[in-house]
């Protein structure tokens, strides 16, 4: 029953994104992309519906179940009965993927799956941050009935009471409808977000830079042990990383298809759901709005600023309205507000705390992802070895069309991190402990989006000799815009 409930939520998400970007049924990159986006869209919508139903009508299943059925039916109706046609994503032309890369990718996927299953079988309740915040809140929402506001009792102030409710609502919805508090619900939700993040990363890169680069990026994400570990730990960081990645990916696609503003609207929705997932998501949503405006201004697309800004805002509106309702009517004030100004001022002027923060961040960066060799060094080597010679200046011409999205990503992602770090310096009593326990998680939230931006900005990969390429793949299969195809063909000849 839990899985049925999650399937219905996923279908609702699929209906909504398919309504925005319709495409004939069948196996295609576009549908993989839609299925991946559907994970977070359905989950976000379902959690908002649950929270509003709880707030307005109480915890009765008699109201919740029909509300969810109506949402699923409307979404599916919109998605499958629409007669509109819209932008369609297809594989970007690229040399064929070599066999060893497929094997590496499949091996990384298999290892990640084994890691995830081992971790959740060993501890199906997840790590402390999961059960003491998200699942504890879900238990209160389900078990306390009409007294569900006890979940926000001041006696539980160690449990981050001002955190938004996307995950607890989703888990509580599954438990409520399936009438059992099985750990299968949070585990399946975590798995779906993990798969969805991988799907959005791969399908977006496949549409923009080709299958080879998509598989390299996917392999790296799957090989990031911390990402898999945090997925299995049932923390909120991986769902947040899904929304951050999706928002950035949609803005990259917006740059590719500037005439279709639905990309910006859906990016806004994803940023709104990021804010509804964790407080850091709200920082990201604001940073994204500002960064996008600045980026469009910088790349001289000033005419696009107002339409895209308005679509982003429109997309964010519904989740932000739910978040504001939650903050004003349900959640206690943020714990930051209880810290005296004198303490904040003392922390601000304490140079030692800033040094601790920078040292901690450096250490986290070097150990990030539990890679045996620091990933920053590996990516630096990647850039060095794939650097352009003056005669083959492909990267710069290739990345021109995504300059706005890349600028947006390179501003919004660091700003989100820096704001978190500054808040820690100002408010956290035990700064070293905080960096040690949550520094890597903060980076994981941004990691899939950073991978997308990195591979989109780097030079195209050429793993198969051009002769072999010409023999094995007849040209002219893709339906991408002509200008883009010609750009890729430049890359392929080098």
């Amino acid at each position, binding site marked *: 029953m839990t899985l049925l409930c999650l399937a219905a939520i996923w279908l609702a998400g699929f209906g909504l994104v398919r309504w925005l970007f319709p495409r004939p049924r069948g196996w295609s990159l576009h549908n993989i992309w839609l299925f991946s986006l559907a994970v977070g869209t359905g989950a976000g919508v379902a959690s908002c519906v649950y929270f509003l139903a709880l707030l307005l009508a109480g915890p009765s299943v008699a109201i919740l179940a029909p509300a969810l059925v109506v949402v699923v039916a409307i979404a599916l109706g919109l998605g499958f009965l629409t007669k509109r046609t819209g932008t369609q994503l297809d594989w970007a032309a690229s040399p064929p993927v070599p066999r060893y890369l497929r094997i590496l990718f499949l091996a*990384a996927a298999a290892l990640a799956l084994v*890691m995830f299953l*081992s971790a959740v079988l060993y501890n199906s309740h997840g790590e402390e941050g999961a059960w003491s915040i998200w699942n504890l809140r879900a238990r209160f929402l389900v078990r306390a009935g009409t007294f569900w506001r006890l979940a926000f009792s001041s006696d539980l102030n160690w449990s981050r009471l001002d955190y938004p409710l996307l995950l607890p609502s989703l888990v509580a919805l599954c438990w409520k409808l399936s009438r059992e508090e099985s750990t299968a619900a949070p585990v399946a939700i975590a798995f779906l977000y993990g798969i969805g993040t991988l799907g959005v990363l791969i399908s977006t890169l496949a549409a923009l830079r080709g299958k080879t680069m998509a598989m390299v990026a996917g392999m790296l994400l*799957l090989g990031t042990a911390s990402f898999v570990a945090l997925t299995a730990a049932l923390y909120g960081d991986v769902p947040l990383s899904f929304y951050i990645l999706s928002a950035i990916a949609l803005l990259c696609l917006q740059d590719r298809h500037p005439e279709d503003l639905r990309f910006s609207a859906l990016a806004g929705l994803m940023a709104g759901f990021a804010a509804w997932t964790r407080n850091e998501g709200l920082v990201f949503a604001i940073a994204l709005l500002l960064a996008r405006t600045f980026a469009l201004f910088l790349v001289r697309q000033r005419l696009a600023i107002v339409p895209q800004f308005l679509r982003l805002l429109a997309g964010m509106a519904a989740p932000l309205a739910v978040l504001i309702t939650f903050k004003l009517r349900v959640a206690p004030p943020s714990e930051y507000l209880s810290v005296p100004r004198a303490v904040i001022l003392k922390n601000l002027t304490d140079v030692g705390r800033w040094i601790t923060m920078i040292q901690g961040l450096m250490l986290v960066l070097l150990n990030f992802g539990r890679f045996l060799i620091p990933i920053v060094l590996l990516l630096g080597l990647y850039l060095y070895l794939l650097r352009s010679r003056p005669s083959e200046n492909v990267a710069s011409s290739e990345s021109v069309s995504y300059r706005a999205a890349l600028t947006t990503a390179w501003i919004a992602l660091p700003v989100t991190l820096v704001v978190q770090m500054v808040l820690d310096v100002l408010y956290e009593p035990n700064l070293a402990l905080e960096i040690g326990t949550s520094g890597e998680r903060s980076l994981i939230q941004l990691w899939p989006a950073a991978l997308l931006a990195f591979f989109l900005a780097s030079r195209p990969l050429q793993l198969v000799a051009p002769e072999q390429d010409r023999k094995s793949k007849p040209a002219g299969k893709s339906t991408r815009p002509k200008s883009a195809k010609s750009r890729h063909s430049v890359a392929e000849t080098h």
Partner: protein
Amino acid sequence: LGRQKFVVLLLGAIALASSFWFLLDIVGAVAHRSPVLRVAEFEDRFVDFPKPEPHMVYGYVSDNAPNDPRSLWEYHLTQYVLAPAIIKDSANEPLVVVNYHTKGLDLRMLRNNHLDPFHDFGNGVALCRRSQR
């Protein structure tokens, strides 16, 4: 071409080796069970505890040393298990959950906290009353 193949193979090899290393960590954790209880095992200790109702408030006392990191972890876990009741980390409530790790209830600890035994559920979990004395 050679450089590109090299860097992709290097990335793949490091990613796989790192994942495998982490997997060994998990297998090690499963094989050499740590003395700290997992959530499901901790929850099983409360199987005979009466079903908590909303608005019930229990105090909480444990025989863990205050500076033992397990102390806070088990307190939070007790709250997780007994939700929607509220568990206060204090002996100053009419009913107090006692979480102990010895064979029997430590009567001296109860005396020190002014508690009288009310119901010992076994498994290291007991419910005590605030002493009237």
